[in-house]
């Protein structure tokens, strides 16, 4: 740690650049992290463990004593007293799509129009965003870049928080299509009281019928022979009906959740994910029966209603866990706060999730499963990608979430970021 700091300090003193560090090159040599506490993301904790990885893939995890030390040229890194975690995954994120909220020129998340399934967040992902290294520094190595406009917003892609460009950073292209479910209640604004009013949405049926028709046509299009006229919107939706792509539906109100799931099933979409789900405590049974997973709105929000229990948002992950519904946590729209994602999981532990490892799953293994990337990432298991972090302590707690090393596909990241650069710059001002 000290060494890294010194190195960084030197870098910042000697170089005039104020750019994010270069992405790491491919893993050159096998690495073994030895002696730390390994949180595998499967619920297992190995207190004195090892993890080895080579060519970007995990080759072994286990008790330190069980490590095979005769496998040739291995760089052994002592992580005694440290904690090793799978790289955290931030789904439903605007990282890379927005830079400064109030500067319109830097905001690329909301396309105009109602039905834009063909719009791809992938190509707008700015791998040079100043925000990206800051979230990596709290353990987030994977984000899902999502579009948010219109009714059908477009398709998301799953990105690494390191890479020269979007082609370089992508983990899974066009993993799903995003649908803003026309709400049973619509938010309106009362000009007299300047209050936001939530009232029944009278235009809802019309909107739903339009969505149903588009999906029916897209399905017919996908199932038909090569069409005479290519429809880019329908082309982009093909994967929904084969299960290759998820349908992510943003719905909060309980009735909307039920209807959205019913709609997806009726439309022939096998994989549906509910995103937001702020009233999900009412429909846990339904979600369980239908095996529908949930990506929750950021827990650090206020209750929606005056009479709701003050801690209801904090308790939702625990409620879903108990009900047996697969749940992932998100930092959705406030992308620059994404680095607090691990603390959402920590909060969930304080409010009903059974233990820290279960909460950890909600930002690693569960999310990977929901996004369909669990074959590659999400847990520390042999054969998976070596996308992991080493933390000074409990990654879910602010006091100990100090990321000392991070690897994406075995590539060791430079953990410098804009904030550290400014910190170091001004430490020199004060001679410290």
């Amino acid at each position, binding site marked *: 740690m000290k060494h890294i700091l010194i190195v960084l300090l030197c870098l910042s003193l000697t170089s005039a650049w104020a750019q994010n560090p270069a992405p790491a090159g491919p893993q050159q040599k096998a690495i073994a992290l030895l002696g730390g506490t390994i949180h595998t993301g499967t619920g297992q904790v190995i207190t004195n463990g090892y993890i080895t990885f080579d060519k970007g893939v995990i080759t072994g995890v286990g008790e330190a004593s069980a490590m095979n030390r005769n496998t040739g040229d291995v760089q052994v890194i002592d992580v005694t007293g440290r904690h090793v975690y799978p790289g955290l995954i931030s789904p439903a994120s605007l990282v890379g799509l927005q*830079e*400064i*909220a*109030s*500067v319109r020129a830097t905001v690329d998340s909301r396309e105009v129009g109602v039905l834009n399934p063909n719009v791809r967040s992938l190509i707008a992902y700015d791998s040079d965003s*100043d*925000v990206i290294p800051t979230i990596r520094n709290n353990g987030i190595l994977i984000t899902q870049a999502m579009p948010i406009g219109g009714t059908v917003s477009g398709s998301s892609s799953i990105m690494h928080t390191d890479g020269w460009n979007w082609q370089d950073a992508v983990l899974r292209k066009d993993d799903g299509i995003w649908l803003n479910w026309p709400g049973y*209640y619509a*938010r*309106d*604004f*009362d000009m007299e*009281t*300047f*209050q*936001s*009013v*939530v*009232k*029944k949405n009278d235009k809802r049926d019309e909107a739903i019928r339009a969505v149903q028709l588009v999906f029916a046509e897209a399905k017919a299009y996908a199932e038909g022979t090569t069409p005479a006229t290519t429809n880019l919107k329908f082309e982009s939706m093909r994967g929904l009906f084969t299960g290759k792509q998820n349908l992510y539906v943003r719905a909060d*109100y*309980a*009735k909307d959740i039920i209807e959205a799931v019913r709609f997806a099933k009726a439309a022939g979409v096998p994989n549906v994910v509910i995103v937001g789900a702020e009233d999900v405590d009412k429909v846990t049974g339904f979600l369980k029966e239908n095996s529908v997973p949930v990506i929750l709105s950021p827990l*650090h*929000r*206020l*209750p*929606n*209603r*005056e*009479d709701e*229990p*003050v*801690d209801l948002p904090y308790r939702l992950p625990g409620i879903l866990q108990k009900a047996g519904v697969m749940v992932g946590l998100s930092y959705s729209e406030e*992308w*620059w*706060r994404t680095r*607090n994602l691990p*603390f959402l999981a*920590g*909060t969930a*532990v*304080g*409010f009903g999730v059974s233990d820290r490892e279960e909460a950890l799953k909600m930002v690693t293994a569960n999310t990977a499963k929901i996004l369909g990337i669990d074959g590659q990432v999400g847990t520390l298991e042999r054969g998976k990608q070596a996308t992991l972090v080493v933390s000074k302590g409990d990654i*879910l*707690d*602010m*006091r*100990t979430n*100090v990321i000392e090393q991070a690897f994406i596909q075995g590539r060791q990241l430079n953990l410098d970021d*804009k*904030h*550290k650069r*400014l*910190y170091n710059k*001004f*430490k020199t*001002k*004060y001679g*410290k």
Partner: protein
Amino acid sequence: MRKHLLLLLLAVGLAQSGLAQTTFPRNGVYDERPNLYAFTNATIVVDPKTTLQNATLLIRNGRVEAVGNTVSVPAGAVVMNLQGKRIYPSLIDLDSDYGMPDLPPRRGGGLFNTPPQLESNKKGPYYWNQAIQPEADAGLLFKVINPKAEELRKLGFGAVLTHAHDGIARGNGTLVTLADDRENTVVLRNGLSQHFSFSKGSSGQNNPNSIMGVVALLRQAMYDADWYKKNGPAEQANLSLEALNRAANLPAFFEAGDKFGVLRADKIGDEFGRQFIIRGGGDEYQRIDEIKATGATLILPVSYPQAYDVEDAWDADNVSLAEMKHWEMAPANPGMLAQAGIPFALTSSGLKTRTDFMANVRKAIENGLTEAQALEALTTRPAQLIRADDLLGTLAVGKLANFIVTSGNLFAADNVIYENWIRGKQYILANRAIADLRGTYDLNITPQAGTSNLKLLITGNNPDKPDFGVTANDTIKLTPKVAIDNNLVSMQVALDKKQPNALTRLTGYRNGSTLQGDGQLPNGQTVTWSATLSKPFSASATKADTTKKSTMGGLLYPFVGMGNAKKPQPQTLLIRNATVWTNEKDGIMTTTDVLVSNGKIAQVGKNLTAPTGASVIDGTGKHLTNGIIDEHSHIALFSINEGSQSSTAEVRMSDAINPDDVNIYRQLAGGVTSSQLLHGSANAIGGQSALVKLKWGEPADGLLIKGADGFIKFALGENVKQANWGDANRVRFPQTRMGVEQVYMDHFVRAKEYAKAWNAYNAQSNTPKARGKNATATLTAPRRDLELDALAEILAKKRFITCHSYVQSEINMLMHVADSLGFKVNTFTHILEGYKVADKMAKHGAGGSTFSDWWAYKMEVKDAIPYNAALMAREGVTVSINSDDAEMARRLNQEAAKTVEYGGIAEEDAWKMVTLNPAKLLHLDSHMGSIRPGKDADLVLWNNHPLSIYARPDYTIIDGAIYYSQTGDEQNRVAMQAERARLIQKMIQAKAGGQTTTRPTARRQRMWHCEDIEGVMAEGENK
């Protein structure tokens, strides 16, 4: 209906005006009449306390000449026998806009991306602000509008106090009758009252655009009027101020809107030695003690909320318990206030449907108001309030002959108001001569029309408009069409149910208790018929059941779902065996006891003994800390920014406190006990802060920390120069950081001069000797300027600055301005580039209150770093971590913990950043911010290490009273669920019983941040 209209027209056309109009020429022949009427054999309610049976009322020329049981009727009087009828003094409404012009629509003023209107659009020698129009003269504006008068006459009103409901100072009121006459006889007295409100009405001027701005503007106008009286005219002519001064001794009415407004309005009155008569909102029962303490007489509406559609369990969640309880309790408002001895008059204003007025008064009576109180509130009290009790309110001799003739008890459901007499002129509302025909009649048609054993049923509450039915053989029910007019009867009925279009038509007349005549069967055959009364109508059979009194839930403090059934009280508490974070030299003490009594920390130590009566809380395995103090908060406020001008130093956030904001409770659940409620950052010099303790249940004044220093918000950067406000907002100075500096220079230079002028004046008036020696040099008092007062306080070190700031250049600028003008910046808040200038801040003596890790939301925060707190702290700056966000405030312990992650601050010091340090920055550390005997017992018992993500409060204690406990919270949830369930059942029943209901809509409270402005939508609020 048509019949009544006709009658009315006849009455108007044939009767001449009751009053002579001597100054007017006449087209035609003089028709002066004696206007002498005697109403005999009536039950006369002379006033709410005096009812005469079988009495006579004698009126002449529009006045009461005699009333009593022994009045002799003079010759020449028209005698009206009111046997079985009642006479009441007619009702008076004090909150009326009858006859006033319609309000022009509000335009401009920065609303919805229109350019700001910085000056008044009203041309003339008036006040600078368009919302202050005390010169408005209701007498000049008034015009008789008979359809509107008629609407009120039908309800029993005879006179109203009307005024133009436009603006904050609305001018004077005029007392008018509701007669349909020339204005000269309708206006009784002009300029007998003065009117105010919190609404700027049609004014499109930007200022004021917040409730605290409204209060400040009105206060300033009143101070200006005072100044104008003494020295003003020498400088300027101002008809607005003249009007204010002219009206200074008149009864003053204040439309306050709701319970909070009532208290706020009264406070303004107190400052100027005036007792306003306050128009409330119908929710005063929720703060009855405080409202009683104002000593104000109220004007109360009888408008009640509708029940909600709550059949759907999920949809019903969108209705809050407070809304449901208010639905239940609003009709009890007048009764509860009367019970508490709070005087009031009732008004028909504020009703969605004015014809509901009497029914709603009746609801108030069913819910605890007595009939005498209701009558008083509609007659004598309003007359007294406008000092017109020599004219109105009772039927005593000499008063105006304004009275109504009713069928019975005015407040009974089946009462009919027959006539409304205004200044001796009759307005017929219903025909009192009409016979009560209700009853069951044997209906005979000869020759028999095929159906036998016919009965005619005349029923209903109102003998004037009875319901008709025909039965055959007691089983078949037929609905005839019947018209009875001047004893003529016309009826059409289909006697064969299978042939509904085959009408038998019967026409005839009333002959005593028999109806008879002839008619035709559907086939044209002529018949004769008669209907003979067999059973008289019995009213009790259909009378609504008003005896059944429903149970009502209790009050809550505050009146929201999470409110307390009883306000928490300080206790003697012993917290045992906790890890105590003292914030003192002792540091973090393990296995330690803390004793609390009389709201203070009494003892800190090991193995303390519990005094008798003490509650003991086991703190084993837990951490006891000070309550969190949020240096930068915008919760519990109705409004944040008076952003209309570059300086609004005159506004006070204490005028905008909403003690019912559920975020108070939510933050207690996060361990927050005190907050600085700050003005927003829309202008360079914002408003004066309110320092509060989160005493959930107390009224606004009960939250304020007594004896706290005064603070004021300043702001720099993008918000001040309106950088993100859209293209319409490129008018207000300043639009650049260059201009911001000049705003400060200008205001402080003026404040210095102002302070100097006052000092000179005070020095002189305080030393009579000096004045005697040099009598010619006597200075007059400078104009009191609330804005400059606040700035002069800063210069005198009696008020302290919290400045919203981001970028180093402007931070340095303000410190430079301050140094050069001799004041200090107490605290820079946000101060996201504080790390760049921490050395200078330390030298200046400014503290820094910052976010832990916010950035990237706008251009000026692009260099914000989470290491900011650590860097500033290490340079010797007193650093606190604040929220500026209702959600984050409930996790400030976590935010403090981030300084451990970013910059490696020691845990004990990190904790001080949300407790002791903000106490220091707010000058509260002498009695708050650490755990030491003698300090305020503002404590939190955490279930875990307080900086840990896993920690949550078990108890939050303020001044020794438990305001939150985890177990209490859980109990509340259960109780709330039960109360909701009871009310939902009651609403469903009410709907089944025919009450109109409304769809649930959830009002989401706006969460304020410091850049939010009323009238400007926050991000995400436009759909």
